């Protein structure tokens, strides 16, 4: 293999200068001539029938240009998942019923925010209140009010089931009967939220050619276009979603949102650009938070700790509409079965409708909570058996070449090596279990481990990515990709791939990205497929361009294309540095001799090429991914025994991400996930009461600040290679490393204090209560 020049290197991010100088334009920064401000009227009832909406006073207010309600829409529902089993269930604006506090009832466009705000107060809505239910287990009971009475139902004896996943293998009863030890525990995840710094924001401009142009803070333009076009009844080519910089997303900006629909419809009606930007309070009260899940876990093991049987029940409180709820209950199955080998499994997941706001994916999409449950219990089992936490994990860890129960191969799997290396680097075995020796100390130290695994791209609309690499006359390059950089650095790694494949510097490449009109389709920055799916599409496009370039050069230099190498926009014959041709000349020759071909490389990539569709969300049958990443993480904590305060001192991550295309970016992803796991495990919680969101600011919702920074150490376990001109198998790095850390922290807290907290977050009072009970 040739030595790599750009890939595998810590190249600074491509958009660094724009961001460091304040020149990067985010959706919130955009202004268009004649722009109006949009505001949304939201339901103040958790469940009610809409009897009448009177917008006449609002319409008469000077400065108000348009008011819309459900009656102005086509009444087309949408959903994060749209399948025959799970048809769309949400109107973009409520029609005859509201199902949560904050649901969109009407929207106005006015000359400024103040007028728009005042107009909202002039809209009169008559409601008839209906009984509401907020707790998912209450909502499943026969006497619970029905939230979607007329909607096609998921067949189940329980009420309000938005989705159900049921699967298993082996013989669960026999497995438990043969187990030496069986444990049953219940773990509760809290309602968390993303805290992207840029609030939800959309600017829509319906132009004179009847084309709708939309800038929106999102995780990929193609899914937005599809759903906007469908709900607005417009052809896809009349809806253009364009790139703007995105100020963070973490799962909270995927799917179509009502404010995007409202800005668009207001612009269509008003024939002027309309911008909607959420206040932070509105983000907390009305935008989608993560999926809070309950896990009931029954596990049987042999005397040596080997897993025999596992029975898992997951209940998700999806809120008033499905959102991603039916996906998270599928994924939780995956996050159970990926990391450890389980001979007998019974899994059931329920996504339950309640009168709460709708939920979205949040980084890890179920994995952090699920792994918290599994790996907390794994430590409890290890303690009962007198085995150390590292050994019990090594005994059960997924191995290289394993075939998963759904038929996927994990191919390369560095999990065992991750566990071994993270244990060694942290001297885990020497430092674990020292509670007794610290009994007199006010501040006690503890150490804990967790493992997790994550998929790298799956099949969900738009399923695939494509790319175009254009050579310019001077040999510089334009890369056209639909990928959207949301901070994770996808534009940078795509440039590294192009630079490596073609032999130009990163500076020679300009990226045109994330525009549904001018760039090819892209899978989006929300399915952990950026580096793998979009990366391979770009790799193919770049090597296609290089092939064309070399064919021309070979003719000119009178040699075979295989004898050529490229560097610094110059093509050389290997071993004869004197025989060369510049890219500029090669492009000119191509245009002259190849009927005008200016050299454009085309590439496309889809995972699991022979598999028609995504796996069944109901039964888990079918392929899920062809590329799984693994990691083991160790947390070191200090606990103040008088106050119950926990400090996460150090996090060590050993990870198999395949091949790190940009180690600096990979480190940044790990740091960010460690920080998010810290908040998840220790503080973060959105409080709700009867469907009302009580947490409305960063003062109520503490995310880690600079003073909470955790020392972060990384250990790469590299299992894949990068070779030119062939597809590569790198793995995801953006979601898996938030997942093992939550359990690692919980296990470390137990190691320090002897208190096992099974409901997150691990607040000081829970530790103090636990100490008191002991």
């Amino acid at each position, binding site marked *: 293999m040739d030595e790599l020049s750009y890939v595998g290197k*810590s190249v*600074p*991010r491509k*958009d*660094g*200068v*724009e*961001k*460091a*100088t*304040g*020149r*990067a*334009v*985010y959706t*919130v*920064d955009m*202004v268009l001539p004649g722009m109006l401000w949009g505001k949304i009227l939201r339901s103040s009832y958790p469940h009610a029938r809409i009897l009448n909406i009177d917008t006449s006073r609002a319409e008469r207010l000077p400065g108000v240009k348009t008011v819309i309600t459900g009656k102005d829409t086509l009444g087309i529902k949408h959903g994060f998942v749209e399948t025959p089993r799970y048809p769309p269930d949400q109107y973009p604006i409520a029609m005859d019923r509201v199902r949560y506090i904050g649901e969109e009832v009407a929207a106005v466009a006015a000359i400024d925010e103040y007028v728009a705000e005042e107009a909202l107060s002039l809209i009169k809505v008559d409601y008839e209140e209906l009984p509401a239910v907020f707790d998912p287990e209450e909502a499943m009971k026969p006497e619970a009010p029905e939230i979607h009475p007329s909607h096609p139902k998921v067949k189940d004896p329980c009420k309000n089931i938005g989705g159900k996943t049921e699967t298993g293998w082996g013989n669960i009863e026999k497995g438990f009967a043969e187990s030496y030890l069986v444990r049953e525990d219940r773990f509760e995840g809290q309602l968390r939220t*993303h*805290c*992207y*710094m*840029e*609030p939800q924001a959309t600017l829509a401009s319906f132009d004179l050619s009847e084309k709708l142009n939309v800038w929106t803070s999102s995780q990929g333009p193609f899914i937005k276009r599809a759903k906007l076009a469908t709900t607005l009844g417009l052809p896809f080519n009349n809806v253009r979603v364009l790139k703007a*910089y*995105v*100020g*963070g*997303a*973490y799962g909270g900006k995927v799917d179509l949102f009502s404010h995007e629909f409202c800005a668009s419809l207001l612009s269509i009606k008003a024939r002027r650009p309309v911008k909607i930007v959420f*206040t*932070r309070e509105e983000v907390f009260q009305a935008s989608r938070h993560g999926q809070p899940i309950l896990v009931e876990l029954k596990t049987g093991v042999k005397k040596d700790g080997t897993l025999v049987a596992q029975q898992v029940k997951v209940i998700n409180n999806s809120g008033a509409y499905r959102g991603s709820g039916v996906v998270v209950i599928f994924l939780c199955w995956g996050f159970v079965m990926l990391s450890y080998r389980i001979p007998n499994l019974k899994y059931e997941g329920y996504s339950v409708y309640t009168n709460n706001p709708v939920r979205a994916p949040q980084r890890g999409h179920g994995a952090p909570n699920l792994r918290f449950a599994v790996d907390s219990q794994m430590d409890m089992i290890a303690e009962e058996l007198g085995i150390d936490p590292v050994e019990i994990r090594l005994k059960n860890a997924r191995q290289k070449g394993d075939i998963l129960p759904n038929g996927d191969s994990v191919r390369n799997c560095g999990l065992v090596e991750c566990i071994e290396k993270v244990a060694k680097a942290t001297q885990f075995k020497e430092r674990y279990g020292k509670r007794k020796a610290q009994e007199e100390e006010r501040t006690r130290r503890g150490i804990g481990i967790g493992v997790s695994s994550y998929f790298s791209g799956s099949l969900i609309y738009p399923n695939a990515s494509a790319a175009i690499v254009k050579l310019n006359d001077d040999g510089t390059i334009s890369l056209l990709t639909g990928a959207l950089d*949301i*901070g*994770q*650095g996808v534009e940078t790694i795509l440039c590294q791939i192009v630079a490596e494949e073609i032999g130009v510097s990163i500076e020679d490449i300009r990226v045109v990205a994330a525009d549904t009109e001018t760039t090819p389709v892209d899978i989006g920055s929300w399915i952990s497929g950026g580096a793998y799916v979009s990366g391979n599409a770009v790799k193919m496009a770049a090597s296609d361009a290089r092939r064309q370039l070399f064919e021309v050069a070979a003719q000119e230099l009178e040699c075979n294309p295989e004898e050529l190498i490229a560097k610094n926009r110059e093509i050389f014959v290997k071993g004869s540095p004197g025989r060369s041709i510049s890219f500029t000349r090669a492009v000119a020759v191509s245009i002259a001799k190849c009927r005008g071909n200016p050299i454009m490389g085309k590439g496309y990539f889809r995972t699991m090429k022979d598999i028609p569709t995504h796996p069944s969300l109901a039964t888990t049958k079918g392929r899920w991914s062809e590329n799984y990443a693994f990691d083991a993480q160790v947390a070191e904590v200090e606990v103040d025994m008088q106050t119950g305060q926990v400090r996460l001192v150090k996090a060590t991550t050993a990870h198999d991400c395949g091949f790190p295309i940009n180690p*600096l*970016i990979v*480190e*940044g992803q790990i*740091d*960010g*996930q*460690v*920080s*998010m796991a810290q908040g998840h495990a220790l503080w973060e919680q959105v409080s709700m009461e009867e469907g009302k969101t009580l947490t409305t*600011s*960063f*003062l109520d919702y503490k*995310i*880690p*600040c*600079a*003073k*909470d*920074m*955790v*020392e*972060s150490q990384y250990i790469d376990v590299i299992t894949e290679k990068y070779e030119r001109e062939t597809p590569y198998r790198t793995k995801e790095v953006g979601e898996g490393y938030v997942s093992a850390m939550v359990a690692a922290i919980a296990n470390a807290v137990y190691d320090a204090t002897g208190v096992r907290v099974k409901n997150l977050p691990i607040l000081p009072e829970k530790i103090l209560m636990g100490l008191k009970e002991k």
Partner: protein
Amino acid sequence: MKKQLIELRVNGEPHELAVEPQRTLLEVLREDLGLTGAKEACGTGECGACTVLMDGKSILSCLTLAIEAQGKKITTIEGLAKNGELHPLQKAFIRHGAIQCGYCTSGMILNAKAILDENPRPSRDEILKGLEGNLCRCTGYNKILEAVMAASIGEE
């Protein structure tokens, strides 16, 4: 409300503006002067995304009325690079991977500048304490600390 005339010196350039007294400095910078590098993420002084320098001190422009800045020297992120040459902190943030989504970056860099202007060789803890009012959800602050440390010892 009746507009008031104010003079602001922003990034070395004088501006005479008629502003309504209730408008914040952040609004005037972004909407009247087109300096959108300062961001709003909360509007209530909890996140630091709107940080700018006023007479060299870091302030939250979302909590500062524009009329309070009358006659003051304001530095925004757009004014940090000189003659096309990035400030050492800007270079360090790029090189050390301290930027991901970039939304907090302007405020973070300006606050870091205020810290270094007052204390050119701060300790690790002094930097973290100084930056605790600037929230970042992407980086975990590790690379930000590295970048500020590097800039403080003259590396970029």
